[in-house]
């Protein structure tokens, strides 16, 4: 029996390491969209494993696709022209993120990228890497993971999480209020790190706040996508 895309996505979600089963490989040969999806996941996964690498640079199209779809979902407040003009992602790429498990996995990978930022900044050459926290001026067409994380994930607002408005108003208010708290902490920490670049404690708090925001968004998306707790 021929495998469908949905079945393939389920296998991909559950696949930790190693080769895909034969039916999934057969499906890959015939389905361009799933090939792209598999390739993207592999790229992000590999990137997450390379926490100690000097440059965390996944394929450009991963970030372009992510950005385009975040824009399409109105999850980004201020789209950037430079990346907007790049080639669009394949249709349906974002659709897979509507699946809670995949969204959770993705946010996990984003967290890994955030951890990589922290790891790099803790290295002796931290001053060099810290410079990446501020917008870079065209040294490369490929944005570093930390800057993408900062530009993409940290600009997500509570008003733009799909389905969140449908939830229990107390829950919605709680998530909105706490997103504001975390955003405020991020702003305070960033200011401290800018003023005191060698202050390790301020940096640790900044990365902790990044991680907290990503986790909060994951919770919000999980609650909204699954219609609460169902």
């Amino acid at each position, binding site marked *: 029996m021929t495998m469908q895309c949905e079945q393939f996505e389920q296998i991909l979600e559950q696949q930790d390491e190693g080769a895909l089963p034969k039916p999934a490989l057969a499906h890959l040969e015939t389905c361009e969209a799933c090939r792209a999806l598999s390739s993207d996941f592999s790229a992000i996964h590999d990137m997450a494993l390379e926490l100690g690498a000097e440059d965390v640079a996944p394929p450009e199209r991963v970030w372009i696709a992510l950005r385009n779809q975040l824009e399409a979902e109105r999850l980004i407040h201020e789209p950037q022209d430079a990346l907007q003009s790049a080639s669009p992602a394949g249709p349906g790429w974002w659709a897979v993120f509507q699946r809670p498990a995949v969204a959770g996995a993705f946010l996990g990978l984003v967290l890994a990228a955030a951890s990589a930022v922290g790891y790099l900044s803790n290295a002796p050459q931290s001053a060099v890497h810290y410079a990446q926290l501020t917008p870079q001026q065209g040294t490369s067409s490929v944005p570093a993971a930390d800057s993408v994380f900062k530009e993409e994930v940290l600009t997500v607002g509570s008003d733009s999480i799909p389905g969140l408005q449908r939830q*229990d108003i107390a829950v919605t208010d709680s998530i909105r209020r706490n997103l504001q708290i975390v955003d405020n902490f991020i702003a305070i920490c960033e200011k401290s790190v800018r003023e005191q670049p060698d202050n390790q404690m301020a940096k640790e708090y900044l990365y902790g706040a990044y991680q907290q925001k990503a986790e909060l968004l994951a919770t919000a998306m999980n609650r909204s996508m699954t219609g609460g707790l169902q």
Partner: protein
Amino acid sequence: MNASYSSPVRLSALSAVMAGFILAASPAQADRIEKHFAVQSKPKITVRNSTGRIQVKAWTKKEVLVSWTSKSGKTAVETEQAGNRVEVAAMVNEDAASADDSKTDFEITVPVESELSVRTDSGNVTVDSVHGDMTFDTVGANLQLSDVDGYMVVKTIDGSLLCTRCSGKLEANSISGNVQMIEPTLDSVRVQTSSGNIFFDGSFLSRGIYIMKNFSGTIEVHFSSSDSFDVNASSLKGDVINQATFKPDTHGTPHPASKWGHSLFGTMNEGHAKVELTSFSGTIKILKRD
């Protein structure tokens, strides 16, 4: 005469009829439903709820009793048992329009030795006298644990945690919730909240590790003169208020004075426990217990 005699009777009858009408017109009384699950030693109970109160208490029977009420009638509770695993989930109907519609209150009685996993959005959760590992995942639900023993993991967004006479290990993570540990006998504490306060009033056990961290709230720990612990307290923008007399830490790594913020390092008695208190802009208080 006759009229004056009959008037109270007629009034009573009228009142009874009116009361009947009022009762009939009011929403139906929420039905309480019970289910019993026979289990062997140490069952694992998983509870999923959207909103409503969850009360868990222990008894000596080898049985899990789950009872619930849904005032709106717009939730359905599904239960499942497979051996020592019992799962309970409140499912909200599609026509549920408000938080009240989604509300289901649970009362669950479990064997003393039980594992718990609770996930809810809002509504209070109380657990009393249960011994076993526990996980709690909430958005705004407040959590009260009393006389529990085990490895407890709490994740909440702005729910508070009150842990009274808790034993074992505690990991708690919140953004704006407060965390209070009253008379704990915990040998491992890892508590983090951003804007919430942290309060610890208990003994630091030998070999225990106590890590408490926040961003802007107050961290307050109470010690007694017989406690034995190393302390490392740092607040980047806030104050460190200390009533203890510490001697320099002789068995740990040297702590160079930080040029940022306020820090305190030292040892009380032999330093058998390790206490780390960290805040970004909050005040850290190390106070002597009366």
